[in-house]
């Protein structure tokens, strides 16, 4: 017999309840799920990486539409439950009613808003859900100012994320040091220093008096008279349990909804779980105890005995580069003793608090590897008397073990907790591995270890390595190449948000696994950097593939081909004479007309390249970039100037486009065609961008291909004006430059993003189009240059020749 279960709130706690129910008792409950947020369950604690740009929302979704459908959950997302009618056992939402046999309240918390004037102004946000996060991202223009009120876990994660996005951030904190609930003053100081080093201003002992502004927040005023300018104000001063529904329904409510050990409220049909509950006078604000509650709720619903017993929790701050860990109680007190270790050079601080030979608190800053071990000692109340002298050095120094990094994990007892979020101990992971979970994904699926905040992933992998021995293959992630686990899109995003401006900076900050990258990631990084920072980044020639480094195509025998630009395929007798002379002078074995309407001089020796370029430059010709991931050719037909069917000057437009676009670097090569009428003699409809002239103007189509794949272009836009055709073309190319994956031709990028989205940005949204054109022009101010002219001067030629010639030397 199925029971009707209604769940209010699709958060971290209720999500876990449902997972247990469907696993333990599939088909027993017919679930209706309400959520005030317009989406289902996601990993709320990963909002900070989304804010900083290190993850996307899609990556933190825990239950997608598919999952709900598979388990027959009726979802009402974006719907507030407004009332519970306990007599009739119905919940009311948006005028509709749903009846229940059992009800679970999992409404979480609401952010606390300090009652100061100006708190309702636009530009003031809290930090609780995806909408808040998106509002912050939207406001985070580089250089804009943000004030974060609250220097606790949430406030600091918000501050770090906004700083990574280029904002000027100030944190106002009421107390004397940051995160005073988790850290002692020394660790708080180290943390403050680390944050200040990232350009975040910290104002401790600051009490907010008012938020100033006319139509939106403009500044924050403190009691001491200080004001800080603010385009964005984030309030992260605390939370209070969301209990309104329960109070209205007459349930017993203290600070949270009162529950007993089985998680049942004062009404036997109603359970509550998560941050909205109060158990034994205690509230809960971290996921670990909520997951324990969830297990109990699932058991109670199935009529199985279970009791919730709160355990100690440990805290980590999810700010990349700030390693801190705290657990237990570390306030100074009667009969308490401290053991402290400091290493200022490495910025390490460790403090253990001991009472009657038991470890009761630990604060670690800078090196948190031993955190889980200390936490285990605290939770178990282990008698540390015998270890006391070496305790602070961690498990690897106990029992004479060496300082091997694996030793720390090896030394952990089976009960030691590895995953704090999900309360998974080492023994459970070992058990899962021995039962057949051989990959990180499998261990995650079976034990949930490392599936929430992910900071213990490394530990889990170490446990796997210890258990599986040589059989353990390091997890393969879909990285750009073997040097990194980060994919192309992530690398690009991180280059932007972390303002990385050199290849070594990218490799350092994103944890490249090789010293100097490889032949596949280096050219990609070089492109991403020059596309992102056209003015700041200096092209790294040594990260270029040979053709781009030498501005000519290498041939099978090590000679090169030289292709001067013929704008729109048009040449002159003088140009042809100069080409002929050059071919003679440098003994060019073959002169060939290319498929791109120009002339190729094949078989030129490397040391002759600068000289032949100088000759061609002297006749007014520049590089045709027949070698580049950049603009190649703009193929044209004769058009209205000569052809009896021509409707517009296709040759002229082609030349104009080529002059606009030449020199630009793109993810892969870009070729254009402009035909004077639909007879299409320039084959425009198989190019990356093709323009067909018609009586009414120009039809622009994109995403054609005629190489390893063949594909007709798709219609993008029509315009009566040649100027607009040029703008749309430049905007399209700029968007491709900004979004395309390295070595993806335009058609691949269009297929990935969708032509409609692209059209919206380059055709329909005029402001955005203008911005794209402006960014393209900015980049072209650097790159619309002839590389041949740079290398042709006699002084620069030496490096194209051999360094030394020993062929005539004789041995003595």
């Amino acid at each position, binding site marked *: 017999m199925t029971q009707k279960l209604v769940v209010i709130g699709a958060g971290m706690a209720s999500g876990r309840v449902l997972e247990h129910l469907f696993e333990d008792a599939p088909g027993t409950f017919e679930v209706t799920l309400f959520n005030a947020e317009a989406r289902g369950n996601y990993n709320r604690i990963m909002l900070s990486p989304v804010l900083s740009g290190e993850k996307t929302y899609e990556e933190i979704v825990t239950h997608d539409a598919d999952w709900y459908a598979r388990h027959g959950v009726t979802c009402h997302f974006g719907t507030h439950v407004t009332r519970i009618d306990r007599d009739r056992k119905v919940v009311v939402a948006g005028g509709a009613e749903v009846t229940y046999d059992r009800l679970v309240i999992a409404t979480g918390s609401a952010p606390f808003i300090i009652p100061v004037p100006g708190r309702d102004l636009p530009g003031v946000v809290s930090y609780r859900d995806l909408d808040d996060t998106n509002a912050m991202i939207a406001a985070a223009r580089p250089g804009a100012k943000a004030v974060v009120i609250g220097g606790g876990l949430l406030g600091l994660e918000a501050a770090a994320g906004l700083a990574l996005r280029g904002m000027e951030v100030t944190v106002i904190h009421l107390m004397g040091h940051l995160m005073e609930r988790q850290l002692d003053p020394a660790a708080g100081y180290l943390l403050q220093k680390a944050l200040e080093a990232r350009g975040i201003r910290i104002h401790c002992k600051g009490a907010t008096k008012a938020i100033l502004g006319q139509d939106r927040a403009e500044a924050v005023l403190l009691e001491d008279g200080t004001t800080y300018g603010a385009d964005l104000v984030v309030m992260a001063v605390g939370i209070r349990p969301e209990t309104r529904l329960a109070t209205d329904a007459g349930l017993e409510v203290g600070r949270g909804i009162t529950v007993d050990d089985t998680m049942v409220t004062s009404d036997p049909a109603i359970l509550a779980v998560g941050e909205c509950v109060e158990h034994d006078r205690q509230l809960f604000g971290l996921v670990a105890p909520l997951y324990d509650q969830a297990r109990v709720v699932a058991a109670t619903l199935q009529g199985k005995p279970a009791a919730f017993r709160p355990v100690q929790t440990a805290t980590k701050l999810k700010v990349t580069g700030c390693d801190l860990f705290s657990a237990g109680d570390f306030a100074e007190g009667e009969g308490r003793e401290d053991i402290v270790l400091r290493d200022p050079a490495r910025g390490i601080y460790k403090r253990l608090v001991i009472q009657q030979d038991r470890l009761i608190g630990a604060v670690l800053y800078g090196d948190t590897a031993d955190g889980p071990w200390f936490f285990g000692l605290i939770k178990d109340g282990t008698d540390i008397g015998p270890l006391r002298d070496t305790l602070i050095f961690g498990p690897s120094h106990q029992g004479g073990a060496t300082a091997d990094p694996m030793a720390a994990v090896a030394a952990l007892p089976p009960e030691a907790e590895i995953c704090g979020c999900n309360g998974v101990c080492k023994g459970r992971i070992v058990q899962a591995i021995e039962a057949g979970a051989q990959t990180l994904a499998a261990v995650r699926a079976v034990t949930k270890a490392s599936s929430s905040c992910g900071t213990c992933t490394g530990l889990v992998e170490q446990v796997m390595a210890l258990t599986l021995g040589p059989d353990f293959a390091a997890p393969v992630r879909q990285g750009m190449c073997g040097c990194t686990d980060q994919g192309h899109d992530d690398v690009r995003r991180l280059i932007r948000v972390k303002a990385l401006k050199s290849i070594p900076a990218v490799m350092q900050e994103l944890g490249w696994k*090789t*010293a*100097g*990258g*490889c*032949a596949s990631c*280096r*050219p990609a990084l070089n492109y991403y950097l020059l596309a992102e920072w056209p003015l700041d980044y200096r092209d790294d*020639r*040594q*990260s*270029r*593939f*040979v053709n781009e*480094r*030498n501005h000519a195509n*290498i041939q*099978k*025998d*090590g000679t090169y081909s030289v292709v001067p630009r013929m704008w729109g395929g048009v040449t002159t007798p003088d140009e042809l004479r100069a080409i002929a002379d050059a071919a003679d002078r440098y003994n060019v074995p073959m002169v060939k007309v290319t498929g791109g309407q120009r002339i190729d001089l094949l078989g030129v020796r490397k040391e002759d390249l600068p000289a032949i370029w100088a000759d061609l430059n002297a006749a007014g010709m520049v590089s045709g970039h027949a070698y580049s991931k950049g603009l190649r050719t703009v193929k044209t037909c004769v058009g209205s100037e000569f052809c009896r069917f021509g409707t517009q000057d296709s040759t002229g437009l082609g030349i104009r486009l080529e002059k606009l676009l030449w020199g630009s670097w793109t993810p892969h090569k870009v070729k254009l065609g402009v035909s004077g009428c639909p007879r299409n003699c320039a084959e425009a409809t198989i190019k990356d961008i093709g323009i067909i002239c018609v009586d009414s103007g120009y039809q622009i189509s994109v995403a054609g291909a005629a190489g390893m794949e063949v594909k007709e272009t798709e219609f993008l836009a029509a315009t009566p004006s040649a100027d607009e055709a040029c703008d749309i073309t430049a905007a399209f190319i700029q968007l491709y430059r900004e979004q395309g994956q390295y070595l993806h031709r335009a058609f691949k990028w269009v297929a990935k993003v969708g032509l409609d989205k692209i059209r919206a940005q380059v055709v329909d949204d005029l402001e955005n189009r203008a911005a794209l054109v402006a960014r393209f022009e900015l980049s072209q101010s650097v790159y619309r240059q002839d590389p041949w002219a740079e290398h042709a001067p006699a002084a620069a030629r030496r*490096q194209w020749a*051999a*360094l*030394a*010639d*020993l*062929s*005539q*030397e*004789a*041995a*003595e």
Partner: protein
Amino acid sequence: MNWIDIGSLTDIPAQGARVVRTALGCVAVFRTADDQVFALEDRCPHKGGPLSEGIVHGAQVTCPLHAWVFDLNTGQAQGADEGAVATFSARVVAGRVQLDATRLVRRSAA
């Protein structure tokens, strides 16, 4: 050993190479990011590609023609590819690059 001066370290771009002509064919002299130098035969065993034009990463180079990777220390092809190029002794002394000419210069008797 018969060390011959072939040029200044700065004549070779870091993460790049220059070529030295010898009676035995071209030798590619590589300079890594950390200023080590290596001298290898400039002919890929696959189809003769000029290794001096490859991308240098760590102490390895990727052939510009079909992307075989070679260890600069040993001249051995890496990964699944089989083959090797000859290596020659090279060193840097006071900013100058020197090659051991014993095997490189023409035998006067020959």
